[in-house]
């Protein structure tokens, strides 16, 4: 089984986001970058498929040299090798997807795993972009994944429930929390992550189709009201929700 996992790096979820001086990007000073939490689930799923069906897991990431940390984390979890598509520029989702699809076209993967979204851009579009560019199947927001031969039966999260989806290889699968519990890196993995050098590939993703022209903090909310400190506050609260906020 030829398995790929797309990973990206994102600011640690505890980060307080500050717009940078250019007004378009974030101030990266003191920001700690981590492997996107959903991509961790994707790496885990790739490793589980390999353990059950044999094969090889390749991690792939787009970005400047700072993504090497993220790649190392995935290798430390157990991935066999890595491809680093190198670019200094900020590229948008479609352009990154084109660059990855370019590699995958020749690599002919059976399965490609991604996170359901990255917690920086929150677009949730990457898996579908890849599948559409490669003209293969895609399952988004998977919370259950079973592979028998080349047949996939998966469950994906939708509003208020789940859909059971059936398809066949090759396919792209975007992973949601609940699919698995990602393993911690092993000592052997950590050693491997120090010696295994990713294959470096030049970026060929073409033009971005979107650009962020402004990035601001959401408007601050005016200070709220403490309505009370015991049960007697309940009536006042209902009055406020009714007459002032007008939401009930």
């Amino acid at each position, binding site marked *: 089984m030829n398995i790929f996992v797309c990973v990206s790096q994102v600011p640690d979820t505890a980060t307080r986001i500050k717009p940078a001086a250019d007004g378009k990007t974030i101030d990266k000073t003191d920001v700690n970058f981590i492997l996107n939490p959903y991509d961790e689930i994707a790496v885990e799923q790739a490793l589980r498929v390999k353990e059950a069906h044999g094969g090889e897991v390749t991690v792939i990431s787009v970005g400047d040299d700072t993504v090497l940390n993220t790649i190392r984390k995935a290798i430390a979890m157990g991935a066999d090798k890595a491809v680093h598509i190198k670019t200094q520029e900020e590229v948008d989702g479609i352009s990154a997807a084109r660059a990855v699809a370019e590699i995958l076209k020749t690599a002919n993967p059976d399965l490609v795993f991604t996170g359901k979204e990255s917690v920086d851009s929150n677009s949730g579009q990457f898996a579908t972009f890849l599948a559409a560019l490669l003209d293969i199947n895609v399952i988004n927001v998977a919370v259950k994944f079973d592979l028998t031969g080349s047949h996939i039966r998966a469950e994906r999260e939708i509003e208020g429930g789940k859909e059971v989806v059936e398809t066949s290889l090759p396919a792209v699968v975007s992973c949601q*929390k609940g699919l698995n519990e990602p393993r911690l890196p092993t000592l052997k993995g950590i050693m491997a992550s120090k010696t295994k050098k990713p294959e470096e590939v030049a970026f060929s993703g073409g033009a971005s189709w979107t650009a962020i022209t402004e990035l601001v903090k959401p408007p601050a909310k005016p200070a709220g009201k403490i309505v009370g400190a015991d049960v007697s506050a*309940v009536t006042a609260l209902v009055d406020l929700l009714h007459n002032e*906020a007008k939401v009930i």
Partner: protein
Amino acid sequence: MSSLLIVAEHRNGKLKKSSFEAISKGASVAKDLGLTAHVLLVGGNEVAGLTAEAANYGVSSILTVTDPKLSAYANRAFATAVSEVAKAKSATVILLSATALGRELGAFVSVKLDASLASDCTELHSAGGNLKVIRPVYTGKALSTVELKQPVKVITLRPNAFPAVSSPSSPSVEAVSVTFSDKDFACKVVDTITASGKLDVAEAEIVVSGGRSLGSAENFKILEDLAAVLGGAVGASRAAVDSGYRSHEDQVGQTGKVISPKLYIACGISGAIQHLAGMSSSKVIVAINKDKEAPIFQIADYGIVADLFEIVPALTEELKKRSH
């Protein structure tokens, strides 16, 4: 004549509320940009029964793509249907709801039509004929204005972020025929599992959420009761989900759902930055927490500093009393 296409979504023979929101917004954007607005319905025979309802929100041109094989969702086939209709109608703006289905189709259609995509937008301005798209990034910790550079633009709208304005009209219905290949049906939904009648936190107008402090799955019953009188849904913090009190689909926050309900009631939730990321864009926030220093009070419009096990049942009773 260029057009604006709104893809409406339906489940169990009914259009979704988020689709009414998209249609309303689409109608006003089309007017500002001088485009003809069409609503597109894709599906099996059930589609015929939806056209009247679809025309109630300001757009009277309804297009349908029907095929018995489309009665179950097949992502590639639906994407083909939307793209083919968009081409036939020279659509330059395509709107969908940022639901599981809408986000997936939006990305497909963007590739098929060489179109720019902005997903999960919370603001869309079109005054003066220029489109301005705003979407939250870093899970709500920042707002970005996105330039869509391609001539064709695909935009998905966050449920509850836009009002559905009723404006009934008599629909003109046009069936568009689309040719599908076998590949279009290579990935399909074979079954849907719904928690019976459960309202999703991402779609509910009112959400009552509980944290670790609830202490057990059974204790969430008091939140269920409150949500029931309000007609809302029950959400949870990650700590509550990780403790096994609620399932992950109810989680609100950076690694759960990002929601903008009309009213969010946080019960025994501290207000960690990852939780705030998921709900700070709620219109009105109520916090019930016994610690007056809890960060949740910093973004709450109304707070009660007290034990939730006393306040929540009392609140439910008060609301019940008033509904009579």
